[in-house]
């Protein structure tokens, strides 16, 4: 075995890594925000919408959960292109990741809704709350609190999965590593470096979600329930 690592030429190009990490983070944040909104709406539509809407949301979830992310990305990329839209790789990547994580969010939120006992909803109704108020105060907020850990794991997974968007030349972290390894012939070093960047990004995201959780869910903060 003759392993000789030389990080010098790879690390010389550190600004490229930083740019890539920044783009990965932007993709993750955008897809998390829009994907969460999409997923929450679909979960509501699936639970309380008219049959056609519930069916549509269900079909969306199944279609996304049962096809590879890379294929979804290509579908958005070439689909939009053939419709005559010319969007940047970044926009296409953000869009595809949003659609993808939206489906998983729908499922997680649905599990959260289902975990709220019927008696809770009845108690809300009996106190005079309107349907909408029951939805917000008795269903959505407690469900969110319950599934928050599952949601945040999903969002971190999404950030890692964004590496696939290098395939459509979005200039995120993995694309940067691909480029640097072909430029320097230091493949192993390039990917070790990029792995460390991903680790750091995961850590930052988990830390952010932890802090956000403390803000959003005072009960967890007060009772010290782990997030």
């Amino acid at each position, binding site marked *: 075995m003759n392993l000789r690592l030389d990080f010098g030429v790879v690390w010389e190009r550190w600004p490229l890594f930083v740019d890539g990490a920044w783009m990965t983070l932007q993709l993750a944040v955008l897809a998390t925000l829009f994907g969460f909104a999409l997923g929450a709406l679909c979960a509501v539509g699936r639970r309380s919408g008219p049959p056609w809407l519930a069916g549509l949301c269900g079909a969306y979830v199944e279609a996304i959960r049962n096809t590879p992310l890379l294929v979804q990305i290509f579908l958005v990329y070439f689909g939009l292109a053939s419709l005559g839209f010319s969007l940047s790789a970044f926009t296409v990547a953000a869009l595809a990741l949003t659609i993808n994580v939206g489906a998983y969010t729908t499922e997680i939120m649905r599990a959260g809704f289902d975990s709220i*006992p019927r*008696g*809770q909803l*009845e*108690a*809300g*109704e*009996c*106190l*005079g*709350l*309107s349907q909408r*108020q029951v939805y917000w*105060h*008795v269903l959505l*907020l*407690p469900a969110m*609190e319950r599934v928050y850990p599952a949601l945040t794991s999903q969002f971190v997974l999404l950030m890692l999965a964004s590496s696939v968007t290098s395939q459509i030349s979005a200039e995120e972290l993995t694309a940067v590593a691909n480029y640097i390894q072909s430029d320097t012939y230091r493949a192993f070093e390039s990917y070790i470096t990029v792995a460390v960047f991903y680790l750091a990004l995961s850590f930052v995201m988990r830390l952010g979600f932890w802090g956000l959780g403390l803000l959003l*869910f005072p*009960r967890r903060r*007060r*009772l010290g329930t782990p997030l």
Partner: protein
Amino acid sequence: MSQPTSSSAGPVVALRDVHKSFGSLKVLDGVSFEVARGEVLAIIGRSGSGKSTALRCIDRLETIESGEITVCGHRVSDPKLPLRALRLDVGIVFQSYNLFPHLTIEENICLAPVTVKGRRRAEARETARRVLGQVGLGDKLDSYPEQLSGGQQQRAAIARSLAMEPQVMLFDEVTSALDPELTGEVLRVIEQLAAGGMTMVMVTHEMGFARRVADRIVFMHRGKVWETGPATILEAPETAELRQFVGSGL
């Protein structure tokens, strides 16, 4: 105390020949009874005899097939009934407490006054303090439900209902999930409410309590009001079914 919505002369709750089925299962088979203002009615009977269903129909958690229900002047059996108006007049407490787990006791109590009645938060807090004092939980404002014992949670649930100043309170086996000691503390709270003149309908298995607190007893059997009268019917039942029920309960 706010004034009743209807003339205070008539009954607060009235069921007339109410029929209700779940699929092919007839659960209420011509149920009629009335509750006057300030009266305490206890509904007793075997499990499955339709007690909970009768109570749930009063608050329109279930709809009925035929018959008539009026509550505080609201025609509950009318499909076009504005539900909110009914629910402002009726408070209901369940066996499983149903406190909202993500809110403190104070927030649980303030939620409806603020969102439904549009009370200011400070005012709602004042109410929360008052009703919690009433049920002996003045020191639990900032606790979360899971930090309380079952008996305390049930008293908090009663306080949450009281904060809406209902005209009538419904209790569905509110002590069935509690051990005897905690049962006692909840029953004392209900007894105080009764003494304070609250109109109440309670489904209960606590025979001693029903005898002591109820002005009138309704014994349900197979979806019918099998026997009804003052608490003395428990000592001298007319029907074999009530005799057997009272006997088995001891």
